[in-house]
């Protein structure tokens, strides 16, 4: 029973990881490419980490918390780095297929 659950989680995680990178390689412009790795890949790695947590919790008969740490860190940092990348791309005025805001308005620059 645990075996089937683990296999499902691992397969889902691997497929999502692959689809995220496929999006990174195949999509048209930077702003669409940003979606693949930051959403699909994060979910895929999350699935793999949950599978690993279940595996080691069952095997060692104690709750394994290493994976939770990695998962939390990954889920907190992925949106932050995506936001910074989007800001950098807007700053450099990377070509976009859709209409983007012309330039970043001059604001408080302490961020």
């Amino acid at each position, binding site marked *: 029973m645990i075996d089937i659950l683990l296999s499902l989680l691992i397969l889902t995680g*691997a497929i999502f990881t692959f689809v995220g990178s496929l999006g990174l390689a195949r999509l048209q412009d930077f702003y669409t490419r940003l979606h693949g790795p930051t959403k699909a890949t994060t979910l895929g790695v999350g699935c*793999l980490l949950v599978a690993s947590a279940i595996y080691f919790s069952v095997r060692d008969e104690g709750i394994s918390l*290493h994976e939770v740490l990695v998962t939390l860190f990954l889920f907190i940092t992925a949106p932050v*780095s995506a936001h910074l990348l989007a800001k950098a791309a807007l700053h450099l005025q990377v070509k976009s297929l859709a209409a983007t805001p012309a330039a970043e308005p001059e604001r408080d620059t302490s961020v």
Partner: protein
Amino acid sequence: MLDTVIPIAYALVSLALVLSLWRLLRGPDAPDRILGLDTLYVNTIALLVLLGIHLGNAIYFEAALLIAMMGFVGTVALCKYLLRGDIIE
């Protein structure tokens, strides 16, 4: 069942690594390359977690945690450099 699924997962994650490496080498603009590098880090974490399950050894998580932290710091530093031309002002 795990013995059949894990090699498939290895193959998929390795393909994902190759795809993000391709974007890192090709990617027309600097943010594309940073995004490729970031995805490379995340895919490496996935591969390390798979390796940990396959070999039944929990020691690989320390490496995965380190890569997660260093990858995030690297991405933020590179983005700050693109935004400001300087990392620590």
